[in-house]
């Protein structure tokens, strides 16, 4: 055993408690996460850290010994896994379902360990535990080397932006403290780590079971000259200290108004430092002012730094409320409403592109819609996969649009201002964690370009009034037939027209779309946009689409100038259309070969206030076309 007592001041406790307390008031705090499964000796390592720092009391040890004999997996030996597996339900099932937080302290530091055991919920739990960590300890079994799960852990650690990585090569005692094996593992890991963007890591050969290189150097690894685990954990710079060097940012959490003479802005400083007299700007409004006081129960302060919860007052009466961010006047934050971001899906219910979720970032909550993911990441191989949604534990990249502009930072620059959660508006579940990459330039830089030759000019050159004749009805109702005759008749009248046909559009513009509800919606949206461009060009557009949903037809109507959209309901009863079955589609749908067929297993919402209704049981296509043209050109 090479264990040294963690409390070198143990004697001081008994001899001079006041001196001890004085010494221990200046401890700093480090939060870290341990990654690895029980097989890697993770629980043993955590158990040892707790035990060595006196965090396990005799009564707890007695319970542990009794439990080890009853349900332990170590043949009656002390099973440290029982110490770190909390809930009774988990203990019975032999699985852990959550993140547990452990605490221990040395002379220099208090440590909070996020313990996330390995199983199918791993991604969600590990991302949760890692989100507050300054450092990650990635455990490797020296006998097994770098495994798929090592890669997965490392990928997640890097994704969540942990700056300090320790590669703890464990169970060195079982390989005879072999230097070559250790070196090979470190070399292999190093190659992989660099490939995913981990620039730096510290590899330590340890034995959690025997205590080698935990609290001090091991006599069995004379070839290793680096730090032991605990001294390293004691010396790493914590993020909150590094954050002080960034510009000042204070997300306003709560406005303190005890009376009319006091208006304080309370919140935790996300980065930088603040002093009375500093020039600040309130975002998104952009108003500037000066910090007048940093107020506290013990009296006003002259300095506050990142990581502190403060209350400040400003010299000017400017509008500022929860969700806004007070920043250094010379270094404002970006403000935007469209972002590219990484999403980690955390809910049993999959993501629905286009749906509105609550997005909570910093101290503000806004409504946001997620676009279809650009890709999903296979966390074992880091490959990018095409996907339309994200399931539980899936990680992907998608664009997000918020309903208003928000001040933000890239997640890589500031976790508090670039990390967000998504909340389902119905269930209130936290369904995803997100990390902003950047604002989409199109949100800020794409303006409407005014052109000199406008739509009126286009129309007058053609001597006609643009219009959209929107034919809607069941498959086989006669839309295409009627539309075709209308266009021929208009051409004879020297009218400039264009016929957009449902089948034809799906050969090109919309060939990536299927017949699900979402795809049908997108199909109509695109046709609407194309029809709108054509009316801008002065054309008379004739469309023949089933367009079964009222809301999408209304959406297209909303895109056009008033009076331009003429909805024509080609009204053919289902049994008539089915009896005609020109393309043989109804037969296929009835036999189940064709899914989502309108009228059979997908609804048709008939127009309620169409400009025209054509009853095809009462007139021929020729007569119908004449009627439509009479309406268009009186």
């Amino acid at each position, binding site marked *: 055993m090479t264990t040294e007592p963690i409390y070198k001041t143990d004697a001081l406790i008994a001899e001079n408690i006041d001196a001890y307390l004085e010494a221990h008031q200046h401890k700093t705090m480090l939060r870290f996460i341990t990654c690895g499964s029980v097989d890697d000796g993770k629980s043993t390592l955590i158990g040892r850290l707790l035990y060595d720092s006196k965090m396990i009391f005799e009564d707890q040890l007695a319970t542990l010994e009794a439990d080890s004999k009853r349900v332990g997996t170590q043949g009656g030996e002390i099973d440290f896994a029982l110490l770190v597996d909390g809930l*009774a339900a988990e203990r019975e099932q032999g699985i852990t379902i959550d993140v547990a937080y452990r605490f221990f302290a040395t002379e220099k530091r208090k440590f909070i360990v996020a313990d996330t055991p390995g199983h199918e919920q791993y991604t969600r739990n590990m*991302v*949760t535990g890692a989100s507050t960590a300054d450092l990650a300890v990635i455990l490797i079994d020296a006998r097994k080397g770098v495994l798929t799960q090592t890669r997965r852990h490392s990928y997640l650690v890097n994704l969540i932006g942990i700056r300090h990585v320790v590669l703890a090569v464990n169970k060195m005692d079982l390989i005879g403290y072999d230097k070559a094996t250790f070196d090979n593992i470190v070399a292999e890991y190093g190659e992989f780590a660099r490939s995913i963007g981990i620039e730096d890591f510290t590899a330590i050969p340890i034995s959690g079971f025997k205590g080698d290189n935990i609290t001090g150097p091991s006599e069995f690894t004379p070839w290793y000259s680096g730090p032991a685990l605990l001294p390293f954990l004691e010396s790493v710079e914590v993020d909150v*200290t590094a954050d*002080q*060097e960034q510009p000042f940012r204070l997300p306003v959490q709560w406005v303190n108004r005890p009376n009319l003479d006091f208006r304080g802005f309370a919140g935790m400083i996300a980065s930088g430092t603040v002093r009375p007299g500093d020039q600040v700007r309130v975002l998104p409004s952009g108003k500037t002012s000066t910090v007048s006081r940093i107020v506290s129960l013990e009296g006003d302060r002259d300095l506050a730094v990142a990581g*502190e*919860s403060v209350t400040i007052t400003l010299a000017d009466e400017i509008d500022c409320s929860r969700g806004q961010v007070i920043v250094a006047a010379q270094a404002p934050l970006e403000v935007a409403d469209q972002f590219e971001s990484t999403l980690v899906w955390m809910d049993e219910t999959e993501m629905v592109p286009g749906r509105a979720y609550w997005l909570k970032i910093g101290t503000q909550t806004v409504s946001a819609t997620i676009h279809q993911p650009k890709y999903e990441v296979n966390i074992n191989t880091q490959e990018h996969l095409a996907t339309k949604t994200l399931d539980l534990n899936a990680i992907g990249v998608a664009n997000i649009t918020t309903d208003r502009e928000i001040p933000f930072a890239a997640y890589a620059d500031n976790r508090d201002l670039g990390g967000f959660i998504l909340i389902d508006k119905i269930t209130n579940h936290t369904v995803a964690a997100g990390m902003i990459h950047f604002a989409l330039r199109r949100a800020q830089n794409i303006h409407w370009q005014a052109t000199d030759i406008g739509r009126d000019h286009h129309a007058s050159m053609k001597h006609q009034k643009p219009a959209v004749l929107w034919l809607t009805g069941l498959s086989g109702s006669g839309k295409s037939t009627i539309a075709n005759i209308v266009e021929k008749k208009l051409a004879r009248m020297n009218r400039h027209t264009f016929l957009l046909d449902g089948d034809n559009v799906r050969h090109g513009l919309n060939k990536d779309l299927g017949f699900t509800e979402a795809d049908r919606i997108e199909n109509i949206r695109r046709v609407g946009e194309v029809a709108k461009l054509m009316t801008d060009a002065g054309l008379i557009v004739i469309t023949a689409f089933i367009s079964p949903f009222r809301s999408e037809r209304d959406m297209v109507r909303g895109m056009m100038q008033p009076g331009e959209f003429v909805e024509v309901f080609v009204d053919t009863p289902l049994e008539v259309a089915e009896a005609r079955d020109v393309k043989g589609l109804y037969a296929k749908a009835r036999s189940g070969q064709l899914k989502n067929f309108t009228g059979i297993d997908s609804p048709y919402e008939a127009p309620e206030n169409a400009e025209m209704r054509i009853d095809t049981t009462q007139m021929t296509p020729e007569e119908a076309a004449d009627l439509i043209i009479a309406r268009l050109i009186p």
Partner: protein
Amino acid sequence: MTQKTLTHLQRLEAESIHILREVVAEAENPVMLYSVGKDSAVMLHLAKKAFYPAPPPFPLLHVDTTWKFRDMYALRDKAAKDAGMELLVYQNPEAAERGINPFDHGGLHTDMWKTEGLKQALDKYGFDVAFGGARRDEEKSRAKERVFSFRSANHRWDPKSQRPELWRLYNARKAKGESVRVFPISNWTELDIWQYIHLEGIEIVPLYFSAPRPTVERDGLTIMVDDDRFPLREGETPVTKSVRFRTLGCYPLTGAVESTATTLPEVIQEMLLTTTSERQGRAIDHDQAASMEKKKQEGYF
């Protein structure tokens, strides 16, 4: 250029204040559960700091079992007054009517006065968020407890329906009737609590310090005879011993430890040199292995 290194207590304090403010910003009707113990004392002190110069914008609620130590009742009333906060005291009327007590009713005492009493009080006042002083280091099942712990409309805790907590972002949204228990000092350890009390000069119940007190031995615990309701068994005579308490609850259920520690540094010294965890002094946890988790599911804090 680093301006100032934050100590672990400063960071814990900042985190707790952040949590307290977040609740006040998002909850409709929050309350702070106040049990008069050292953890409650720290939590109340943090609330004063969080909202200064305003008083904490919520009331204190003491779910009373009528069996607390007399010293606790005295400090309770004083602390609320000093903080400028409203103090609500709730006693389960059914438990009072049936004369439920720790001597005759065992586990039913805790169940009726505390668990049921708490639910009744929250329903009576319509509180949607209740702050509690629980810490993750107290007990194994607490290590996985969220800072924001959701309870169904009938106050049950379901470990499977708890929400992931990332960064400093707490999702406080809930449906009508649902409530949240929020634990602002989740990440503090017993040593942190004592160090902070020492550093900030926070007033705590004198029972934490050693003094000569009348005691009897019951079921392996040293119990203080705090008033004349204590039914002495045949041949039982209170013995005056120099004792103090590491945790405080109902006096007939709380074990004392023999001690000579009469100052805070001495208390901390004893704590650091001791070899048993603080919950051992509570009779309620010895029932069964995972008793705390079971009680939590039923609605005990």
